[in-house]
């Protein structure tokens, strides 16, 4: 026998279920208890950098759009700084929250973020990562939230040396992490839970 290790175990995840919007975006479901839904806007004033939109949807293994998902994003500002007390490299844009939450349209399932093109942030060894947005997907039928990243197809040079993109064994899957440019400052990023275009999800 030995002494027990006293670490606690992470609470098991459970699906967000079909009614996640009641708890996380209640105004979206018509329950107006709070002033507004958190994460609806990522800007609290004029922001620095290039303002962009990211639109997309989540698809299941049959190619059907999920209409009960919730997507959250987290990213650095245009200068590559996070609005976090752990950010030690500088002070992030005070008018940019870095965090967005979208319930997806009730009819089309489309999510939409009005944000800024993120700057580059370092990898633990000091190399710069390509510009990216961290994304997290929950829904009915998803037992544990899925982490992924949104990179940009028009950042080819930075993407080519990104520590994560270059780590993917099946390089043919890299495009699943690239937002397509669909207009001036507008990007499209679809998430596929299964199938030939299955998005690369992370165990972080």
């Amino acid at each position: 026998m030995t002494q027990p290790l006293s670490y606690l175990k992470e609470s098991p995840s459970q699906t967000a279920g079909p009614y996640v919007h009641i708890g996380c975006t209640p105004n979206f479901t018509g329950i107006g208890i709070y002033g507004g839904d958190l994460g609806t806007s990522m800007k609290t004033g004029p922001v620095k950098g290039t303002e962009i939109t990211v639109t997309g949807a989540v698809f299941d293994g049959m190619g059907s759009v999920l209409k009960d998902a919730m997507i959250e994003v987290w990213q650095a500002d245009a200068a590559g700084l996070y609005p976090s007390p752990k950010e030690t490299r500088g002070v992030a844009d005070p008018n940019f929250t870095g965090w967005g939450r979208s319930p997806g349209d009730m009819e089309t399932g489309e999510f939409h973020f009005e944000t800024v093109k993120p700057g580059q942030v370092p990898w633990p060894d000091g190399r710069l990562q390509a510009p990216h947005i961290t994304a997290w997907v929950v829904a009915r039928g998803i037992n544990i939230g899925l982490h992924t990243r949104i990179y940009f197809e028009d950042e080819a040079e930075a993407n080519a040396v990104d520590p994560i993109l270059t780590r993917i064994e099946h390089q043919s899957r890299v495009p699943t992490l690239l937002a397509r440019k669909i207009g001036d400052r507008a990007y499209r990023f679809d998430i596929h839970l299964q199938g030939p275009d299955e998005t690369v999800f992370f165990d972080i």
Partner: protein
Amino acid sequence: MSNGYHVRDRGWQPPGLYPPYKTTIKRSPQAALLSFPTSISEETGPVFGHNILGKLDNDLILNYARPGEEAIGPRIMVHGRVLDENGRGVPGALVEVWQANAGGRYRHKKESYLAALDPNFGGCGRVITDAEGHYEFRTIHPGAYPWPNGMNDWRPAHIHFSIFGQAFAQRLITQMYFEGDPLIWRCPILGAVSNPEAIKTLIAPLDMNRTVPMDALAYKFDIVLRGARQSFFENRQEGV
């Protein structure tokens, strides 16, 4: 900067695919998840101030009720701590909750269960943990309800929890169940958690010490988020 987070124990967590919970079959990734060390992108996360909270945000009995009225159902207090795997309280954690009413009905336009809506119950609340990681809210005991999966599957009474820690890597959504509910061990959603010891950590015990006599019962529910890794160097003084 931290040194990253303890690796998530995927054997303790439910797998993406659990066929008895039918919706997982077409919504679970098939390829292996990509593992990599966390960077600043995962080790940071949004911070929420107490200023976002309204006075009744943590009181589901009153926060949707018409003036002078209250939600119907067994009155309960739910309290506990948000901790990390190192056993430390997580201060400033935003905890969002949602649940069915006492009859097992959600206030949602896609909800079709025949149980009655309670005009005084919205079904959501939120709270931010104090300096030691404590949180508390007041609500009614939610009802069990049937759901379309098998021909006769029932969800045990539960409250959904969404929790933000101090890093996006800690982001968690889970459900709290109630001590003594016989439906817990028949539930295909809970069944995805293969270790009974893990399931037990989602079952809140009755806590008679925190009841409000002649008013409300109480349940205690602690939530554990991933812990940050410690390093040998962390305890050294700067420059030593």
